[in-house]
């Protein structure tokens, strides 16, 4: 019984660690998509005293639609841009002394083909 409990605890710990690692790495992503549909919301925490947060997103779209934005805990939107087929978008922004709390990155792709790379970078001094 003890062994089973230890094993279960190990499995839970590894799952939590994996989720945290994935969460961090998800803040920087680069990928291609083909006839894809995706509605993804990613959350990340900004700690109190974080000096700056930087966003960057580059997209080229040959087909479909795409919407990208980041919101802070008060609902302020950053880079709310939409791309239609045959378009290209480059977005970069930064916020000094960002509001601490749960931020959200929203990415919505509808029947789209293209390339996307985005980055959310925090300087944790």
């Amino acid at each position, binding site marked *: 019984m003890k062994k089973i409990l230890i094993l279960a605890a190990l499995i839970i710990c590894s799952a939590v660690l994996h989720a945290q690692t994935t969460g961090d790495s998800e803040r920087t992503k680069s990928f291609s998509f083909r006839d894809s549909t995706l509605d993804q919301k990613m959350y990340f925490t900004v700690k109190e005293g974080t000096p700056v947060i930087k966003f960057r997103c580059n997209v080229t779209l040959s087909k479909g639609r795409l919407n990208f934005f980041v919101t802070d805990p*008060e*609902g*302020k*939107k950053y*880079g*709310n*841009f*939409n*791309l*239609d087929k*045959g*378009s*290209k*978008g*480059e*977005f*970069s*922004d930064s916020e*000094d*002394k960002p*509001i601490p709390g749960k931020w959200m990155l929203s990415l919505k792709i509808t029947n789209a083909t293209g390339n996307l790379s985005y980055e959310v970078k925090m300087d944790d001094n």
Partner: protein
Amino acid sequence: LRPAITILLLTLMLARPCIAQQAEISGKLMLDTTWRREVFVCLIPDFNQMYTASDALLIGRTAIDTAGNFMLRFDAHKGPALYRLHIIKNGDPVSTLIIGGRDENQVFFISDTAGKTEINHLTVNGPFSRCVVTGSAAVGELQHFFTVMRQGDSQHGKEGREWIKNRLIAIADSSSSQLVSLLAISYTFGLDASQKAKVGSVVQRLDHKNPYGVNIFEQYPQSHTGIIALVAALVLSGACAIVGIRFYKKRAVAKLFGSLSQRELTIIKLIADGRSNKEIASELSVELSTVKTHVNNIYAKLNVKGRKDILAYKEMFKKHGI
């Protein structure tokens, strides 16, 4: 020939409102060789599409000459509308947006029917990093909005956020252009109760049919105080009218009864008791014909047709002791 000319003139007069009015954007942009020498103008139908890269929004394009000058006439939207002028780098698709950074490639302007706007580039440090947009009062107010937004970028922390919120509310309140007011409101975020109340009072003053305000008007619905007051006034005046009509009706009936003789009142009482003319004649010891004459006089004075109608005056019988 004369009828033909008349028909032609009439046709032209009728067709005139259908011909779109032309607006104009001109200016000077000094660009380095990385940029294509062409400007593109898009109509922005709502604030959510300010940063939408789509060929479907494109309404015009024109070349930039070797001296950097350009001029474009386009079909103006009916009423003030938001437009975006953008340029692209060589090799990029027509619908390319660069948002933020040194190479930001777009600038917004407002144009009314037949409005004229001018964009003049001041520096080579980025295509639109420092440019002057001139035109109508709305164009000036839109430039002020973007200046405040840029100033807001250098305001940090909680105080900085409050600063930008209050500045946006002030722009919404003071702008003569409803489009700029709505734009400023659309950029507000995390408002406290007092800030929401201020925005709410600004929204009440705006035209709720303005297409740029659809989302805002849902958030701050039109106050129904005026409608409630109107309904209350209608109900009150209706009640007054009913009371007045009843009062005058009673007075008129009282006047009618006043015109009846004592004998006629006695006969009415007997009619009300359900007596026939014969019974009345016997009770009053008069001829049947006399009773009939009295009854006919009563009918004429009260303007009724028969015994049943007389019973409708029951309340008045009580008043006259019948």
